[in-house]
């Protein structure tokens, strides 16, 4: 994945994407003696390889049009290439492949099943690291490779953003299973993130990078709590099973509520500034309608996040002895991960300047490509994820 974020050569991009994909396919089916694990892995594998096929086909078309797979070369040659339709088709196919990876609607159908079937720690990784890498790739493709085609991909991403948020949130409202709910919410978050692409230049890139960092921190936190609460066998996957968590384990309950509040986007958390930068980039880029749709969507999202948070805060039912007896134990490793995630979420919410400055430095390198394309923007995202 680090290779993917740093690659400036399309074939290398493809190889990196395949390496990261294959390892995540295997990880998704890690619990092979349950019925859902292999199902998730196979579904993910089939759809995923289909999507990488699209990506490869796009790369091939672009190579056909420009005769190179170097991203900066392509950026130089694309406006003057003769086979303009090849480039357009190549861009569209590459977008399909990448949008599948970031689970944006309408390429999202794999997400809920994979999230539900894969073990929680794997989902924590799955929902952040490959996604961050794929977004980095998307940034590279649209801003670096085809800045001249802005008029073409911007409306496309606008539609995908609105579709992702709305579909994700509406579907998440109906879920009873926590992991499925978070899967749909991940689709919605991909939508919020894509809203940043409506912004112009540096602002949009910095906003997107910041959002990835914030999202990684809080999502890892949520899944760490889920891992602890539902246990290895994941016998307690429903929202009702979280009822009274704060009474069973005040620490876990408070942390869960904190991460969920960040996902809702309440100020002084990373989630707020993520949304804030993303939508202010959109407003700045003139997409006021997108920002309004996005923020109303985040109001909708508050409904299901809060359902879980409030269930955790509610008094436990007395007759349900089985769940109330289970007080999850926090091990050192998971505890450290939790604290790190909580700390990162809080720091991103109180002092976002530092991270944003890094993101902007990265944005500058993307805007004016230097010889060696180091991307501090992405390394920020990577840092907070680990």
């Amino acid at each position: 994945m680090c290779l993917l974020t740093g690659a400036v050569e399309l074939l290398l991009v493809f190889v990196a994407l395949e390496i990261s994909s294959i390892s995540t396919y295997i990880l998704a089916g890690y619990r092979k003696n349950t019925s859902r694990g292999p199902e998730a892995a196979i579904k993910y594998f089939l759809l995923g390889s289909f999507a990488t096929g699209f990506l490869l086909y796009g790369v091939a078309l672009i190579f056909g049009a420009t005769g190179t797979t170097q991203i900066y070369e392509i950026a130089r040659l694309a406006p003057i290439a003769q086979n303009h339709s090849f480039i357009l088709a190549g861009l569209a196919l590459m977008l399909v492949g990448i949008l599948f990876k970031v689970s944006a609607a309408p390429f999202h159908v794999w997400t809920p099943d994979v999230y539900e079937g894969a073990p929680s720690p794997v989902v924590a990784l799955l929902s952040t690291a490959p996604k961050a890498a794929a977004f980095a790739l998307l940034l590279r493709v649209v801003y670096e490779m085809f800045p001249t085609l802005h008029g073409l991909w911007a409306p496309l991403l606008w539609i995908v953003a609105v579709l992702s948020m709305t579909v994700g949130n509406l579907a998440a409202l109906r879920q009873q299973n926590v992991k499925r709910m978070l899967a749909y919410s991940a689709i919605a978050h991909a939508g919020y993130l894509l809203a940043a692409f409506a912004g112009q230049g540096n602002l949009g890139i910095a906003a997107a990078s910041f959002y990835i960092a914030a999202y990684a921190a809080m999502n890892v936190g949520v899944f760490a709590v889920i891992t602890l609460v539902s246990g290895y066998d994941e016998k307690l996957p429903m929202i009702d099973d979280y009822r009274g968590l704060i009474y069973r384990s005040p620490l876990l309950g408070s942390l869960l509520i904190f991460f969920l509040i960040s996902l809702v986007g309440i100020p002084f958390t990373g989630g707020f500034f993520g949304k804030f930068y993303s939508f202010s980039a959109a407003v700045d880029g003139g997409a006021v309608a997108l920002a309004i749709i996005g923020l109303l969507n985040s109001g909708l999202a508050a409904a299901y996040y809060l359902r879980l948070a409030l269930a955790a805060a509610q008094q436990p039912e007395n007759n349900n002895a089985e769940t109330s007896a289970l007080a999850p134990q926090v091990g050192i490793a998971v505890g450290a991960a939790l604290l790190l995630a909580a700390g990162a979420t809080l720091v991103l919410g109180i002092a976002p300047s530092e991270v944003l400055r890094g993101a902007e430095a990265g944005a500058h390198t993307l805007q004016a490509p230097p010889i060696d394309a180091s991307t501090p923007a992405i390394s920020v995202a990577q840092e907070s994820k680990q």
Partner: protein
Amino acid sequence: MNAINNSILTLILLLPLAGAVLVALAPDRGKLPNWITLATALAIFGLTLHLPAHFDKSASGFQFAVNVPWIDNPAIFYHVGVDGLSLWMVVLTGLLAPVGVLASWNAIAERRKIFFVLFLVQQTAMFGVFVSLDLMLYYGFWELSLVPMAILIAMYGRKDGPKAALKFFLFTFIPSAPLLVAILWLYSQTRSFDFTDIHNQIALGLIPAGPLCWVALAFLFAFAVKVPVFPLHGWLADTFSEAPVALAMVVAGKLGLYSMLRFHIGLFPVQARAAAPYLIALAVIGILYGACLALVQRDFWRLLAFAAVSHLSLIVLGIYGFTATGLAGAVYQILNHGVVDGALFVLLGVLYDRYSTSEIGVYGGVATKLPRTATLFVIAALAMIGLPMLGGFIGEFLILSSTFTGVSKGWAVAAAVGVILGAAYMLWLVQRLFYGPESKLALSKPPDDLHFRELAVLWPLAVLMLVMGLAPMLWLPAIETAFPRVQLVVRGPSTCLSLFSPQPHRQFQTKGRACGESSSRYLPHPSRGRSRPHRCCRHAHRRDPARRISAPIPDLDRSAGNHIGSVGQRAAALLASGYGVLRYRRDKRLHHLLSPPHLRHRSGNAPAVI
């Protein structure tokens, strides 16, 4: 002393958080969390009392201001300060903090730590809303104030906590989405989140008028839900009946009404005027509707909720009447309502604590068992009704009289009917709860009247109601320092009139006294007499066909003391020191009046950049 004045607001904001950390780290043994929280709350109250003691009543504008950069891109500043409007809000919040702690002393039996931590976070959020002068900072605290409330309603709800909590949260969270977009849009136009910067730019007409109407509407909508104004009150009854007493008493009214005064009327005076007729109508409907519904409630929490709708609507009426008296009365009534509502909540909480039911029908004859409770309840109820010599009278009288003289006799009469209905439901409630034959419920439990702890909370509140009724001048002078600003900006350039008003000029005919007063104080030519600036402002708008000027935006530098001193003074100074000259140079007489002496003899082509 200067160092204290500079850091006092920061201390007030941080102390609750420090208390929360302390509660979280301390062991949950006995009443330890309660004592820590009580000590913190008393310390906070002591700190807030520093503000009125050192508040300069002769100067208007923001005092105790702190303005340091927080986030450099976008430019968010940690900018806090209080003026006559927010001063008393801060003190009221400080006063209600120990009241809330003592009211939940025994009522909160389990998970005390979480309760008190969230209670203290809530205090920080409330203080933050009142003192923030940076729109993003304000928005942050505004949203933050929702979270502890929602969690605590879910945790301690009497019947169906999570449902009420979700309702409360969504009702107030969703309208703040347009609010955030509006703030971002303002930022994209002004490159600033600073209240005074944005205020000045709007007052000078530098912002496109069409979108500005929508921005003002987004602000208004978010605040109206929070107050709540008539058709948006759906969340209040459930929240009142589910929330713990300590939080229910702070949730309604203050935040929304303060925000209306500061950020709706303060930032968008012209648009607020255009919206005023609708809001006055909604307010009067709210007064009558709330009172009628309060008459038929069977549950006393719900009765209190609809009574609150009625009383808060009266305050909205005072605000949007746009008279100096009405505004002062509205602020006074916010304070009074905070105190009275707090006392009523504590008293009803006592009843609920003793008898475990909130159904009015099963009470009756409790007065013989709990005489002290009954006495204090009657005092609070009378203060709520607006009996002369108690706090409610002053505010209601100011609002109703200003509505009668300044807005419309019909609305005033309708609102007065609502006040009479208010007396009806409150007195009937007192009668049903405390008097009449002793009910089974009253006989079923041994009498357990107010303890020392509860008396220690309630008597000071009762005395305060009396003092607020007898000596309003302790409060009003400081409140009034906030209003020349409102009056002044109301006469600012028109940007939005064509969309709402068929007769633009009428918008600027402020009530003579207030206008003369403010202009003589704030325009730089006090010797010019009272009526002339007033007339000239009207001329200016008649003579200025181009509603918007295409000159470069003056660089309103954040440094060099630009943030200290009143908005009005600065708007006037801006107007006078060249920018206004450019803008109004066609009107020679106005130019003569508004430009400072050293510019007066020039041609009037002074540079626009200040």
